[in-house]
């Protein structure tokens, strides 16, 4: 087990290195410079030189890369260009909190509601609740989340006046965005759970359980749910990553100082160190989540042995 985890971590490091390298060179080709072109153009040559030197941009590209990797290995991701003098790791971790809070809450809401709906829908296949779940599942992924977020903000935040709408002051500000984000998660979880449950409910061991005289509830809870949850666990990884990093629109609407807007801003502003930092974070996080999912797999399903790995 430990050996397996270490081996996987090794792979992750190698993959990460490739990702870092690719991103580094691609990023350097992003149009524009990290500086306001108009302002940069009116600097004296000495000053331009100085600025480039300060940000290590006057080296040749391979040299910059080597330096970056060296510093990275030392745990130094550099300082941001746009957030002047601020450490990239600080900038990112500062933004991570709100994103993580909202992302995790959204996933939890999505899981709770999605699982319940999915289970009910499969159990009462072709009933009202099933259709309701399916409609919800389809709408959940069909309505752009910024539309949902804007509506939530307007109606619940402003019209009811129960939750703050404008800016980030703490946990109570995370409720509405979490709900807005949870729609798609709920929809996906419900959908996957339903499909898999329907499948599992057709299995022989479910018939065996029914033949034992277990009530439907018990058959469902003890036998069907656990065996249906694997696909949900699989999609959970990408969902978590997406919700934590891809919620730009919702972040903007609820003025959340999150990682999504940081990323887009920095790409647009050519803030190379931050772009790299987020990429590393994102890729590492993604691969770790996948590893965690694999570990969770083996806990949920004793048949799966880790050493063989799973077909992904």
């Amino acid at each position, binding site marked *: 087990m430990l050996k397996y985890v270490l081996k996987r971590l090794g792979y992750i490091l190698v993959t990460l290195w490739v990702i870092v390298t690719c991103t580094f060179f691609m990023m350097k080709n992003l149009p524009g410079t990290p500086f306001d072109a108009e302002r940069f153009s009116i600097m004296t040559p000495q000053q331009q030189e100085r600025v480039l030197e300060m940000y290590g941009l006057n080296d040749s590209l391979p040299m910059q890369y080597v330096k970056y990797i060296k510093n990275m290995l030392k745990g130094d991701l550099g300082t941001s260009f746009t957030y002047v003098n601020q450490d990239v790791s600080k900038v990112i971790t500062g933004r991570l909190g709100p994103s993580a809070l909202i992302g995790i809450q959204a996933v939890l809401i999505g899981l709770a509601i999605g699982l319940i709906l999915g289970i009910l829908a499969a159990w009462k*296949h072709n009933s009202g609740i099933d259709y309701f779940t399916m409609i919800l599942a389809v709408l959940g992924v069909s309505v752009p989340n910024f539309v949902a977020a804007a509506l939530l903000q307007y109606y619940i935040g402003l019209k009811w006046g129960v939750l703050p709408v404008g800016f980030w002051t703490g946990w109570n500000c995370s409720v509405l965005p979490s709900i807005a984000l949870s729609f798609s998660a709920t929809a996906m979880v419900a959908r996957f759970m339903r499909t898999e449950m329907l499948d599992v409910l057709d*299995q*022989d*061991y479910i018939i065996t359980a029914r*033949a*034992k*005289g*277990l009530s439907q509830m018990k058959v469902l809870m003890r036998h069907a749910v656990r065996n249906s949850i694997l696909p949900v666990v699989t999609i959970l990884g990408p969902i978590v990553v997406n919700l934590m990093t891809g919620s730009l629109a919702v972040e903007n609407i609820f003025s959340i100082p999150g990682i999504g807007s940081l990323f887009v801003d920095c790409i647009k502003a050519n803030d190379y160190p931050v772009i790299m930092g987020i990429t590393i974070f994102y890729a590492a996080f993604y691969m770790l989540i996948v590893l965690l999912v694999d570990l969770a797999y083996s806990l949920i399903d004793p048949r799966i042995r880790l050493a063989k790995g799973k077909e992904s």
Partner: protein
Amino acid sequence: MGKILEVKNLTIHIKTHKGVVQAVRGVDFYLNEQETLAVVGESGSGKSITMKGVMGILPKNGKVVDGTVMFQGNDLTKYTERQMQQVRGSEIAMIFQDPMTSLNPTMKVGKQIEEMLKEHCKEMSKADRKARAIELLSLVGISNPEARYDQYPHQLSGGMRQRVVIAIALACDPKVLIADEPTTALDVTIQAQILDLMRDLQKKIKTSIIIITHNLGVVANIADRVAVMYGGKLVETGDVADIFHNPCHEYTKGLLRSIPKAHEKGGELQAIPGTPPDLMDPPVGCPFAARCQETMIVCQKFMPDYTECGKNHKSACWMLDEMAQEVKADEK
């Protein structure tokens, strides 16, 4: 010996997107106390569905449209789901064909046995249950039951898994045990062990057994009486000796002819040509008419009634009709 289970005119339909499958079409049979009834028949002839109908565990799209299932004087088809839950497992238990898939892969086998006890013997304490589960494991001949108790199904071999399934079924000393092809997926050596086991257990626990199988050898080995199904109908029932030595229905005869005798070599097997009927659109007459060597016009038009052809032995075949006998005699 009283009848513990009596099924009358059981009719089951299954809805599919293409139409309604008339999986079971008016089946009558009964089961005496402590006897073993073997149900044989072509694949798809409705054996499993009949038994699932008895247990009330039909697939969602299946429905008992007619008939009664009398169990100890009560009609199970009239039972509510809750009442049926009391019956299942404790009164009538069922074993399924494939030991690989009929155990929950994510639950320890011990727990799966205990689950049955928890459901039906509520007074048992946790420790009692565990003790009983281990006892059951050793009862079905699993060595080192304490260790097995904590294993998952995938850690057991096929034969062991089938034993676990049997242990589950026997946990509450059911009055009736329905075994749906319990040995089909197993090797002959293990099959023999399982059959021995079932026979021993029947003696010990005094249950009645219905065993579904394709294998006539198994029937000969374990059954007291035999019911033969074809095309959703029960075409012949009788004591095992009568069925093997004195088959009345043409299908039964054909079946017996088509198996090679292990002790006599050579010669061509006498196959039954053709394919069983599609139950989506079953023939109006005898379901076997299309493949029968002796088909008469009446066979294709009308379904025959049951005719007694011996003690405890009846069959639905026009050949047994007096008229047919006459005509045949005349022809000669």
